[in-house]
């Protein structure tokens, strides 16, 4: 029983990371029908931005770790959104303006991801960075089950982000425009809404939360390297697809599902089988429901 609860907590923590990254894939896809393959690397850049911010605030300014964390959260999110918006501006928008086929934009996204990885490698070298400790670890024990404060923060962050996004897309005009654009891009400017504003807003949300995930991930697993976003990015993307890409609930359900499957596999089988089993199960889900759990086959009324 204790082992089970322990595993559930770990699954929730990993699911939270996947969900926070998956939502970026799903939001951009919902608005642009673009799979932004650079998104995993934006997560990586987010972790590095957090690293440099924290080093600067702790070392150069000498701030208290608690204050550093409180400042690092918004600053990392803002700066990482800047990275996402920049990519949109210099890589995706010019292609969109020229009416390029979506395939070329997806390839561009793949290249942007590789540029971010290799740019990081060239700039900072291959040595790994050690993320400093910001939060004194408190372990809460309930019988044999132990939870750290950091795990609770990660899980709470994912849940809060989910409700925040639900609020944005159902209650605000810009959020409604994000939903509307996925149904009919043509009509958005006819409503007096600049399409680019909706797209930029979408990148701000997706990249900002990837930055948050990067910071929380670096705090949880404090070793940073340029390729840290690649595999987790792929996994989050697959989670978004399994949940139903384009749907925010899908990103979260897919992310947590992947977390549970991975931890579940490791609980029973050797850990080397984790990814093989996890992806095989996801393949079966897609086999049964190709549009993902929340996905709808789109049809339009004439």
């Amino acid at each position, binding site marked *: 029983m204790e082992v089970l609860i322990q595993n559930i907590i770990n699954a929730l923590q990993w699911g939270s990371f996947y969900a926070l990254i998956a939502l970026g894939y799903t939001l951009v896809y919902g608005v642009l029908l673009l799979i932004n393959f650079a998104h995993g690397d934006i997560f990586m850049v987010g972790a590095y931005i957090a690293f440099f911010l924290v080093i600067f605030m702790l070392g150069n300014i000498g701030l208290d770790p608690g204050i550093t964390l409180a400042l690092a959260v918004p600053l990392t999110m803002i700066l990482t959104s800047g990275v996402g918006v920049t990519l949109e501006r210099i890589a995706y928008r010019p292609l969109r303006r020229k*009416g390029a086929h979506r395939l070329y934009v997806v390839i561009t996204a793949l290249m942007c991801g590789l540029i971010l990885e290799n740019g990081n490698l060239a700039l900072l070298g291959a040595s790994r960075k050690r993320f400093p400790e910001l939060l004194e670890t408190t372990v809460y024990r309930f019988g044999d089950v132990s939870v750290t404060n950091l795990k609770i923060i990660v899980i709470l962050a994912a849940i809060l982000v989910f409700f925040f996004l639900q609020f944005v897309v159902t209650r605000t*005009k810009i959020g*409604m*425009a994000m*939903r*509307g654009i*996925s*149904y*009919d891009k*043509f*009509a*958005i*400017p*006819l*409503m*007096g*809404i*600049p*399409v680019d504003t909706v797209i930029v807003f979408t990148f701000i949300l997706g990249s900002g939360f990837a930055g948050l995930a990067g910071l929380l991930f670096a705090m949880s697993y404090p070793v940073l390297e340029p390729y840290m976003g690649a595999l987790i990015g792929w996994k989050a993307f697959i989670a978004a697809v399994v949940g139903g890409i384009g749907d925010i609930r899908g990103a979260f359900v897919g992310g947590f599902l992947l977390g549970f499957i991975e931890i579940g596999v490791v609980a029973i089988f050797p850990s080397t089988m984790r990814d093989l089993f996890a992806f095989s199960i996801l393949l079966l889900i897609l086999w049964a429901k190709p549009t993902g759990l929340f996905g709808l086959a789109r049809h*339009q*009324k*004439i």
Partner: protein
Amino acid sequence: MNPLLEIDNLRVKYGNIEALHGVSFTVEDGEIVTLIGANGAGKSTTLMSIARLPPPEAPKVISGDIRHKGVSLLNMAPDKVVANLHMALVPEGRHIFGNLTVEENLKLATYARKGDSVPDIQRDYDQVYALFPRLAERRRQQSESLSGGEQQMLAVGRALMSKCSIIMLDEPSMGLAPALMYDMFRTLKQLNEEGMTILLVEQNANLALKFAHRGYVLDTGEIVAQGTSQELMADPEVKKAYLGA
């Protein structure tokens, strides 16, 4: 005095094909003007050019000008045409947001009205729901589930919510049962009597000329006849080609 809307020798390309070869016409404040013509004559292309919709979906201007109160709008973004000039396009096929509710569709159209007070906007909701009671009944319904006629009402309702003073309608009668079609035109007439300027594109020339003050006949990208509705209805050529008489 400059006309409210002036299309001056407009030539546009759609892909590699020139779709309009120098079209000129004007719309005065408070008028109902109709563009009639066969399928493919360039009527929708004209409206999309005025709405400044960007390529690749929309036509590209080669030469000529489109002026609003004497000021060219060729370099204006499509959302600014709605937000600043208060010209709304109700496109062919309606293009409602089927995944949003009726109310959300209307709310989206108020996006650019940042300076307007809540009571002002509320008054417009009330006006739209009074004009189209069916929309009021279905306000929380997913708009995909509306009938064709209700979707057309929603498309017009959205244009009104954007606070337009010029409404451009592309084939509003398409796919509507006759009774609904007459209802729609009665409502549009009422809006015009309250001051709305209307530019109407229609294949149903009989209906359009009965409704409009003036008309232009468009044939393969050129204006071939123009005049008041009475004049056009009496013109033997127009009668033969478009009115089935």
